[in-house]
């Protein structure tokens, strides 16, 4: 049986000079996992002039930051970052290493898992620590890596019982962001960076990035439309309702595919996971993949012409009927009441 270090590491991604939300979400979850394991939560920051980013992680429970800070590390590059992180993970062999299941995280994590010959589970939606009996063996304190599989039809629990480093990428928005009132009085440990020949083989020629135009995750009210609305014209009703009640507009995958709404507003398994105070689903049938991204909303109103639509199964309030009539009524009544 392998002996395992109890520390939990979170790789901190950066967005415009700040830690990415998903990384802070993972710290929040990682803090609880580390508590259960009696281990420490460490944040891994790779970048340039990144000390403020490192410090920000103390507010989310990191007790130590391993910081590699160098001009060569200013931008994310696969070969550089994966080498630095692979060497760190190989040296300290933390029991758990977590990444956001972002484009960057999914580019980086597999190379590290391959380098250290360890297990990696992609796109987790939940993580737990538990004792496990597997093939007649008993394992203590394994990381349960829980993820949808087969197009979301099945939830699988994956374990890596025979390796000392358990790695997972986790979807953005599924873990709650839980800042501490008083940040941990943690320490920053500098990791020296020595350039290596393979590091700079890939050059960034151009980079175009627009940060957070839409922030569905922090919206208290979301009005989402689906393919059932039929036309882009009808989808405007969703926008009107959102504007009236102060919500953000969102859509199902089918609505995005139909061109009703932009991909950055897609809720669901391949989009964003949200849990607003109020989620209004209009003309959305409620496929598993969509429900996975919104079913933890505080209150859900479903509006659909099909009374059998699965969306009603997760709704608190259901309105059966034609959205083209119900939405204008909703807008009018709302305006009267909250004038």
């Amino acid at each position: 049986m392998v002996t395992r270090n109890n520390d939990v590491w979170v790789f901190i991604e950066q967005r415009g000079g700040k830690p990415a939300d998903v990384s802070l979400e993972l710290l929040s979850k990682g803090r609880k996992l580390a508590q259960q394991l009696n281990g420490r939560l460490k944040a891994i920051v790779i970048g340039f002039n990144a000390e403020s980013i490192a410090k920000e992680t103390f507010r989310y429970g990191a007790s130590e930051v391993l910081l590699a800070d160098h001009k060569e590390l200013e931008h994310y590059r696969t070969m550089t970052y994966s080498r630095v992180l692979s060497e760190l993970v190989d040296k300290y062999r933390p029991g758990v290493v977590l990444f956001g299941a972002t484009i960057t995280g999914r580019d980086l994590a597999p190379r590290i898992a391959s380098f250290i010959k360890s297990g990696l589970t992609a796109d987790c939606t939940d993580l737990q620590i538990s004792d496990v009996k597997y093939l007649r063996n008993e394992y203590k304190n394994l990381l349960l890596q829980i993820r949808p599989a087969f197009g979301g039809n099945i939830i699988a629990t994956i374990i890596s019982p025979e390796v000392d480093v358990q790695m997972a990428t986790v979807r953005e928005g599924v873990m709650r962001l839980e800042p501490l009132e008083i940040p941990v009085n943690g320490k920053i440990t500098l990791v020296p960076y020595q350039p290596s020949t393979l590091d700079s083989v890939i050059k960034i020629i151009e980079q175009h990035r627009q940060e957070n135009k839409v922030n569905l995750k922090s919206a208290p009210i979301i009005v989402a439309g689906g393919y059932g609305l039929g036309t882009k014209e009808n989808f405007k009703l969703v926008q009107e309702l959102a504007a009236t009640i102060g919500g953000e507009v969102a859509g199902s995958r089918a609505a995005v595919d139909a061109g009703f709404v932009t991909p950055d507003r897609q809720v669901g398994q391949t989009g964003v996971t949200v849990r607003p105070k109020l989620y209004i689903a209009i003309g959305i049938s409620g496929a598993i993949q969509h429900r996975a991204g919104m079913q933890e909303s505080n209150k859900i109103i479903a509006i659909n012409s099909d009374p059998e639509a699965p969306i009603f199964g997760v709704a608190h309030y259901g309105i059966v009927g034609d959205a083209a009539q119900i939405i204008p009524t909703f807008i009018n009544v709302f305006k009267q009441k909250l004038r």
Partner: protein
Amino acid sequence: MGYKSIVLVKQVPDTANISGQVMKEDGTVNRSLLPAIFNHEDRVALEMALQIQDNHGGNVSVITMGPPRASDVLRECLFMGADDAYLISDRKFAGADTLATSYVLSEAIKKIGSFDFIFAGRQAIDGDTAQVGPQTAEKLGIPQITYAQEIVSINNNKVLIKKKIEGGYEILESPLPVLVTVLKDAVFPRPYKAKRVMAYKNAKTLMELEKLTEDNSLLYIDQLKYEYMSKHLYINTITMDDLKLDVERCGVAGSPTKVHKIESVVLTGNKHEHIEPNKIGIGTLIDKLMEDHIFG
């Protein structure tokens, strides 16, 4: 002249049509009960390789690792225009996770020979992990570009690739060889050529030729294989014996991740309150939301 591309393709169960019966008790998948299809993003990857061949010359090989019937996707690759195809198949490779898969793939690629590009789809719809590409690149010690949207140019053994990043894109310059994983809309896969379909529908793997000899005692496998090779209808078949592999790193034994539990997704099952689709019904609903301090 020209560039040599290797394309990693996968036959996948059509995950749009899944029922509980297809999951075996040990949590692995009974693929024989599911319609098997060519993973779409891998088809896009093949198209990208074929376009490089169209523009710069060279050749395109396709590789798949899977059960014998995965030869179906290799024939489809030949229909599209691939020059040759490799099936990597052995019972000892079964049950492999991404680490064990990338180990066998990387060893098979080393055996096949030198290359300029390896292309693969970003991910396969059965696992959605997007891990085999990067892990294969790591094992081969070459750089990778994932989430590729476009080959911008190839010059002097350097490639410019446009790739998706969070909130935008970047253009990267990489030396060759490089492994590239492509997004589903990167290029539009070409249809099959009728002539190629007629020619290659009879292409066969070693296992398929063995089946022929079992059914007909007058056929000898070596002779048959030679005959198919000379007609360019032999699908190269690589088994455990053809590679110098560490058995402990293959299949289930070489896979650190294990499926512990499988559950069907069930509705959380709120009993929702029915609201009448009129002014009164909606008015009451808005009142409730005001009481809950969601509105107002």
